[in-house]
């Protein structure tokens, strides 16, 4: 089963089991992981699902498209090289992802 480890800005960790095919954002929201707001429900319109992906996980993820790249310039906490919008990250079988949520999303 895919697992996502969410670390918040204070360092608290929450491990959440997800389903293959779901996005990291959906996995977070359904389980009420604080730190992911996701106002637009995954339609790449709000940039409130920003996460920092642990460096060694980045390569497991699909490359980002232009729209995601542009949206990332508008996140509440400035983007870093390992920034992604979690609604664009789909879980695959047995993937294990480590992400950190920013201090704030709005």
């Amino acid at each position, binding site marked *: 089963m895919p697992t996502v480890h969410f670390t918040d800005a204070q360092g608290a960790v929450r491990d959440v089991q997800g389903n293959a095919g779901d996005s990291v954002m959906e996995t977070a929201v*359904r389980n*009420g992981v*604080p730190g992911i707001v996701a*106002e*637009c*429900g995954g*339609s790449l319109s709000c940039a409130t699902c920003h996460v920092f992906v642990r460096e060694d996980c980045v390569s497991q993820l699909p490359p980002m498209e232009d*729209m995601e790249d542009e949206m990332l*310039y*508008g996140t509440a906490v400035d983007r870093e090289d390992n920034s992604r919008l979690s609604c664009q990250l789909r879980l695959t079988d047995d993937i294990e992802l480590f992400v950190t949520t920013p201090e704030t999303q709005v």
Partner: protein
Amino acid sequence: MGTHAAAQPTSVTAGAQTLPTRTGLLIIGASQSGVQLAVSLRALGFDEHITLLGDEDHRPYQRPALSKEFLQGTVESESLIFRSNEYWAEHNVELVKGEYIVRIDKEADGSGVAHASSGREFPFKRLALTVGARARKLDIDGGDLDGVLYLRNADDALALKARVGNATDVVVIGGGFIGLEAASSLHKMGRNVTVLEFGPRLVGRAVGEETAEYFLQAHRARGLDIRLNTSAARFTANDAAGENQNSVAAVELQDGTVLPAQIVLIGIGVIPNTQLAEQLGLAVDNGVVVDRFALASDGTTVAVGDVANMPNPVPGSEPGERIRLESVNNAIEHAKVAAYSLTGRREEYAGIPWFWSNQADLKLQIAGLCNGYDRTVLRRDEERGKFSVLYYRQGRIIAADCVNAPLDFMAVKNALAKGRNIPADAAEDTATPLKTITTDS
């Protein structure tokens, strides 16, 4: 989290009568704003019992995809669910589905009992109305034929989806956001789609002239047949007696034109669900009238989201100016303010409204409210299919409509939120990123 009052109220004897002990908060309407209210209250440490009640048979879900991804079948219904059942159980929120509240008895202290059409009663200590809005009906001949549909909730979307398979021609009545989103989706699904708009331009007053014109051209170029200044006179069924006698077959226009249609989708706006508020004697005027803290005129009931008519939340707006917004962003932000109110904190609702609408490959993002603008600046990058309109009032930016231009949208949204400006003259050059010319005053 602290202890919660029992789900089922116990009884106490008052004189000869048995009255339920009124406990907790009853949220009527289990959608975007009701869900956010419950979630925010728990995040704030509110430890009284919460009943989140709605008339729909589904677990609370997000509506925006209904006219887009869900209709097109690119997203499954499970992805639209806001929270897992486990979440509600863990957070002690009692979810009640399929109960429609028809009447409320309320005391001066804010407590009372809500009566459902099934006969069930829901006592409460505090009440929240998050009952949203319903589709405005088009009352013309043939309006009750099968296949004449509206799109407000999941059942509507399922009914529409079920008919798409057998349809070749669709007529969409109303060139607003929902009409255009659904029209684009249905066109993408291979149907012939005609959009009838009563007014002289698309999307009413929600966007400016230039954006409306951009969408008109873009949709026509993508294959939608859009007819402005046109209205339907009646819907007709097949002449021949037989199975489809009760199904819509055509739309007859005021000028006599007949358009074949096996589906007619009506999207001509919504009406706020103020029935309960009226019955309670609350002030109502195009929505439940609330103050900056989301409190209705009785000072105890909160009303949130599409149903609320509230002071304009944009900082610096005209005193006394009121507005009713229909958007996810508003439902969320307004619910947060209501949650503060219910926990005794006074946090005024202030913020920059924003909205999105996906239509075919056009991603519209709107930041701020454009009413009262005196100048616009157009940023149009033909080659990359980007288009933005910035709105100004007395030299200050107040809003922007951005199509496939998230950088512009984000720059304007952030500038507005921080009270900064983007000087109009400097914004005219499309090669300049707006972020780089944002000024402190």
